[in-house]
């Protein structure tokens, strides 16, 4: 029988966090609530508000409408739903609420009247009362507000004007007032200067950070050089670089001149099978190569390896201009802007999408990265990424390779570290590429957004292998458009340091004093701009909770012994056994042009000439076999890759497999979708939903097992149950990673001694000052009073590092 009333849910009732929130609000019902309800930042003032406004919810939010009050401040357009929580005055400021948009993100304001719609600019005047207000954002969101008949006409008009006048079509100078509106107040400055950085992620700002990375990857034969500590050798490189141990700083100094902008080959990452990944700019050709220089150059290039493959990213990859053009087209296509005349009919959508070439570029980056990943898997070589400037595609490919190969880089903490390493400190020109100031249009190119798209493609093909989620990628995507973060407000580390007036004052002896652990007074005192990684500042805890999902297997492979996991792989190229063979990988094939290393060609390269023989074809074919593996994608059964954490996630690059990031680019497509299924949305991945449900179950389990735990009479039993569960979970391979067991088991004797069960323990011995400090922090938490909760929270817990939000979210 069909029974029951046919209710049509408003979805927001069913979205878990919303529901929870609504439940918690029923308590407030009786009390008089502040009608305004906007939680302002310190110093933020409301310029205009309109009541009884309805916001159209996107498909992701569940569709339908939400009514509330619309505000415009100096900093943002805020929307407060009617039933939202009364702002807690003591809470830390959060820049943007769930329904807010920063003025700087707004690209266009369109007012829709009874019969027409109009693009509202600061100078124009409206000749009608808007019924609807549509905000087109730079981050491809489209916000749509509907004024109710009860909204006073004046309010509707006023707020439209105010937004149009206040939002800045970014141009030189306006950015500052925006930044001041957000972070300029004294309270805010104070608040920011008291904030501590996330100690769990690697910031790659001091030499210890790099040493930690060397150790994590098990790389030997490399050392951290601070020869560029004062940016004297290269202005765009970070202060610290990792170079072969055998090269002394004095020798190293001579190599800088041989590379464009002094961007010498630097170590980035070691594959568990013993290959090293390096990146560098192009060679300076018009320079005389001295004999000693050549030895050093070769050393820097080869590290400890016998074989070196240079991967040329200059030619076949899209140029920044290409990327910019593609992105502009993609935006126009996806926004389906009412105000512009270009509107693509639905039946031409596919071919128009293709003609943007955005997907081609995504595929191109992924393919290159997959090739490099396959090479690295071969083991025992250095793979050097070379790009003329070493500041765009090198960043993309180098970090993609690591996302593919290193499970750590697929966690939030690891991914942020990766971006610090390969983008922020490495000197990707964020400021110019994003073009916040609108003063370098020629340089503008969303290279970073292309990278995020590539990561999303990987994520979409291997959702269960990532601890970070699409929500996280989206949050990062949106933050790029806010000119508030130190991470993006500079072109290189030098600028960043200079801005915070924190150029190291005193001479630091090479390999001398170690940097103090972070969080120490060294922390800049007057930095108006927080790093983008301070998510607590940007998003509510509900949204942050969706940044991670449980991972199917230990995200962290067991510690490596000198990085030499490699054993039985056939070392094809070793047969031809030439020390110092160099190959060029370009257009998916290998070659060995004579002028590949400028110092080897011509007469100047006499030092190595004796060694140079034409590399045998076997060597080439051996390498090509490695590469072919990736292009055919037939290397391995998915059954085997699944269990080998070192197998790279090779993306399918087949036409139908590279897809448009609907969750991001089509957020603006406001479609008439009256209702949607309560538990669904168009783009949310099922895994998220499932993770949530399992989380619920685990919470209940934790609750249920804690309660008897308090009961003194039968203490042992629930513990046994719980550990049983964990064992089963491990066998079942899915939701609980193995090392959690060790954290979860309530141990009779709590205390620092227990640190031996922590996966982090190996590190402790070798990296005393930092590690122990971290571990101390961890002990107090893990073995403190809050054990049940620590159990219930899923996060990057089975890790070398602690779950990120623990400290501040409780």
């Amino acid at each position, binding site marked *: 029988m069909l029974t029951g009333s*046919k209710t049509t849910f408003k979805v927001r009732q069913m979205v878990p966090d919303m529901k929870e929130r609504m439940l918690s609000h029923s308590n407030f019902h009786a009390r008089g609530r502040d009608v305004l309800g906007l939680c302002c930042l310190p110093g933020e003032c409301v310029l205009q508000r309109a009541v009884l406004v309805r916001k159209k919810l996107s498909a992701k939010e569940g569709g339908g409408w939400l009514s509330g009050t619309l505000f415009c401040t100096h900093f943002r357009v805020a929307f407060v739903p009617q039933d939202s929580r009364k702002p807690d005055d003591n809470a830390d400021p959060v820049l943007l609420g769930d329904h807010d948009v920063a003025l700087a993100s707004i690209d266009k304001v369109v007012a829709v009247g009874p019969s027409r719609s109009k693009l509202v600019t600061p100078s124009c005047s409206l000749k009608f009362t808007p019924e609807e207000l549509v905000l087109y954002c730079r981050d491809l969101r489209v916000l749509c507000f509907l004024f109710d008949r009860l909204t006073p006409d004046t309010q509707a008009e006023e707020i439209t004007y105010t937004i149009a006048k206040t939002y800045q079509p970014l141009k030189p100078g306006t950015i500052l007032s925006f930044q001041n509106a957000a972070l300029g107040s004294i309270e805010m400055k104070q608040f920011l200067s008291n904030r501590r950085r996330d100690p769990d992620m690697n910031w790659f700002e001091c030499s210890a950070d790099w040493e930690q990375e060397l150790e994590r990857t098990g790389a030997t034969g490399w050392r951290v050089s601070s020869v560029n500590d004062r940016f004297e050798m290269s202005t765009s490189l970070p202060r610290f670089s990792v170079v072969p141990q055998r090269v002394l700083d004095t020798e190293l100094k001579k190599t800088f001149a041989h590379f464009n902008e002094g961007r010498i080959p630097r170590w980035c990452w070691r594959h568990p099978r013993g290959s090293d990944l390096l990146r560098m700019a192009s060679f300076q050709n018009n320079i005389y190569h001295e004999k000693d220089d050549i030895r050093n150059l070769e050393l820097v290039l080869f590290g400890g390896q016998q074989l070196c493959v240079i991967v040329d990213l200059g030619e076949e990859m899209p140029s920044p201009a290409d990327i910019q053009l593609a992105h502009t087209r993609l935006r126009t296509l996806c926004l389906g802007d009412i105000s512009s005349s270009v509107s693509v009919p639905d039946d031409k959508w596919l071919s128009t999408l*293709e003609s943007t070439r955005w997907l*081609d570029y995504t595929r191109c980056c992924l393919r290159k990265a997959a090739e490099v990943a396959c090479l690295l898997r071969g083991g025992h070589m250095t793979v050097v990424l070379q790009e003329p400037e070493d500041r765009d595609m090198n960043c993309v490919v180098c970090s993609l390779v690591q996302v593919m190969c290193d499970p750590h880089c697929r966690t939030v903490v690891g991914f942020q570290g990766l971006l610090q390493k390969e983008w922020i400190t490495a000197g990707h020109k964020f400021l110019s590429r994003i073009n916040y100031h609108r003063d370098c249009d020629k340089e503008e190119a969303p290279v970073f957004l292309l990278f995020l798209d590539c990561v999303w493609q990987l994520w979409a093909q291997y959702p269960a292998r990532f601890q970070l989620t699409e929500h996280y990628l989206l949050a990062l995507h949106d933050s790029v458009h806010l000119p508030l973060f130190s991470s993006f407000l500079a072109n290189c580390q030098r600028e960043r340091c200079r801005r915070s007036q924190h150029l190291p004052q005193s001479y630091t002896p090479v390999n001398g004093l170690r940097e103090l652990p972070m969080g120490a007074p060294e922390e800049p005192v007057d930095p108006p701009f927080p790093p983008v990684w301070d998510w607590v500042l940007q998003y509510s805890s509900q949204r942050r909770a969706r940044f991670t999902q449980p991972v199917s297997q230990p995200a962290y492979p067991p510690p490596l012994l000198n990085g030499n996991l490699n054993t039985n792989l056939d070392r094809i190229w070793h047969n031809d056994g030439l020390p110092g063979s160099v190959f060029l990988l370009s257009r998916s094939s290998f070659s060995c042009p004579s002028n590949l290393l400028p110092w080897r060609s011509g007469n100047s390269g006499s030092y190595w000439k004796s060694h140079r023989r034409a590399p045998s074809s076997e060597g080439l074919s051996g390498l090509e076999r490695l590469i072919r593996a990736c292009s055919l994608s037939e290397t391995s059964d998915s059954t085997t890759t699944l269990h080998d954490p070192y197998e790279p996630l090779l993306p399918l690059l087949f036409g*139908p497999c590279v897809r448009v990031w609907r969750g991001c680019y*089509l957020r603006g497509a406001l479609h008439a*979708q009256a209702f949607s299924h309560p*538990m669904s949305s168009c783009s949310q991945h099922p895994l998220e939903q499932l993770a949530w449900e399992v989380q619920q*179950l685990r919470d*209940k389990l934790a609750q249920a097992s804690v*309660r008897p735990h308090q009961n003194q009479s039968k203490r042992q039993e629930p513990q046994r149950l719980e550990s049983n569960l964990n064992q089963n979970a491990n066998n079942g391979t899915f939701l609980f990673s193995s090392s959690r067991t060790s954290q979860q088991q309530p141990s009779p004797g709590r205390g620092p001694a227990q640190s031996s069960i922590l996966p982090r323990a190996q590190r402790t011995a070798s990296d005393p000052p930092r590690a122990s400090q971290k571990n101390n922090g961890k002990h107090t938490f893990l073995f403190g009073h809050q054990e049940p909760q620590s159990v219930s929270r899923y996060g990057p817990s089975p890790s070398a590092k602690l779950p990120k939000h623990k400290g501040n979210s409780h």
Partner: protein
Amino acid sequence: MEESGSVESLCSSTTTRSDLSSGTRRSDAELRVRTKLQHNTLHSVPKTATKGKAFEKVYKDPSKEVLPLLPEEIIQDAAKDVTYICPFIGPIRGTLTVTNYRLFFRCTDREPVFVLDLPLGVLSRVEKIGAATSRGDVSYGLVCKDVRNLRFVHKELEDSLKKSVFEVLMKFAFPVSNNMSLFAFEYKQVFPVNGWKVYDPLAEYKRQGLPNESWRISKVNDHYELCDSYPAALVVPVTITDEELRRVSSFRAKGRIPVLSWIHPESQATVVRSSQPMVGQNGRRCKEDEKLLQAIMDANAQSHKLFIFDARPTVNAAANKMKGGGYESEDAYQNAELVFLDIHNIHVMRESLRKLKEVVYPNIEDSHWLSNLESTHWLEHIKLILAGALRIADKVESGKTSVVVHCSDGWDRTAQLTSLALIMLDSHYRTIRGFQILLEKEWLSFGHRFQLRLGHGDKNHTDADRSPIFLQFIDCVWQMTRQFPAAFEFNEYFLITILDHLYSCLFGTFLCNSEQQRLKEEVPKRTVSLWSFVNSQLEEFVNPLYVHYPSHVLFPTVGIRHLQLWVSYYIRWNPRMRPQEPVHQRYKELLAKRAELQKRVEELQREAANRTASSSSERTGSPTLSITPVQTFV
């Protein structure tokens, strides 16, 4: 799995066992994994070697162990040294075996062992390509209904009297053309569940609350005299007599009168289906037909309007007047509003799928993939169908208005539209059993002409009546499962299984053109139902994300930018499409994990409750009560 080994063997023998998308390679990998598990060893190389040897030995003594034969399946012919021209890995030499059910090709020289295993039912055409070459090679092309083509080469037999394996193949691939019966009539597997009992029309109408004060179940078509392509039980307004129905039937094409398909449990708005009225060029009218539509409208007190959805493009509907058909004129049917849904006919759809096949098989041009896809218009057709169904569902749900849906004959586009609208409106049809009922009702009992559209066992591959109408419907369902991942109890594998057995002719479900024919052929007695197979191993088909909301209406977004090509069906033969993650496996793990957690929660709750009961004197207001079991729907 332990319920019957035979079910297991059936699984591994059909090509459907491809883990949702990959082709033979994948099932191959599975095979290897299985052997690995059996022998509990990690050295795969020697293992497969011995396996190869075993196969050789067995081959000399043709035994059933190698070929997982079904009951009543008999090897008809086998040939060594046949070369399969694989478009992805190149020529492969192996042995080809033909049974009365399947074609089985196996090459043991390769690592991994290459196996091609397909039911003969999927073959739409077998032809010799070109003449014998100088080396005496003959080439055969096999065109399949499931979006792939196969090509084999083998030596011309010197003994010209002996039939080549391909002649045998042709005979068994097209049994109907050769006056033999389909394999479904020989297949005698017994399943623990009888799928023929899934659909009982009266029970289904009863679930909908029928008959009620406005609707009755008429027996006028009990012997299929009124309309031979309709089911025996018809739901019509109480105010219309059987005699009037007879008169209506002469006015509607093929006698397919307007009858109820679904009724809204609250508003009483109904979805009614029929064929086109025989208006003709002269604008004929039929008093009883007008009265019937009026009665349909009156049965719903909520609305004084009736929407007639004509699935065709306006031009086609008008052109049908030449052939005596047409559409309801607004003069004759007052209070009715006619809407055309612009969905093209079976010939356009067939052509579109043909183009799609060209684009996706065997090779895909990466750089022009999207524009090539666009040129097939396949997604556009999908969009129009979904959009039409959406409008119907919206009228019924939001407008509380009854609707009449028809196309020309009311068995192709009408079936697509009503069944999709029903899926949107009624969550029952989103469960596994409900979906089976929906297919049995809207498609099978209402006479979608499966035999004609698919040409089971018929070698006339150019037949203009063939068309992928049902495939299109399943594609639309798949699109909805993408948009509402938690709303459907079944998973993608379920849909693919249905499509695979749509062609395989292993089960009787999709045979014949109508309920009447099926009864005449005694299909339910003589064959096994697909649902017997499915319902005997439901866990394979369950979507672990399913959440049951009993009364929730789905309104999908239908823009092309929100639709996707169903790559894991159309491109599953391409090894480059191998799934990145074993989704199917994971689904099962999730289900098991969920059940396990659920059990444990209950245990702990019981325990906690016991304990609090025993120590209730110490603590009052135990919070245990607040713990309610988390609902799972496994």
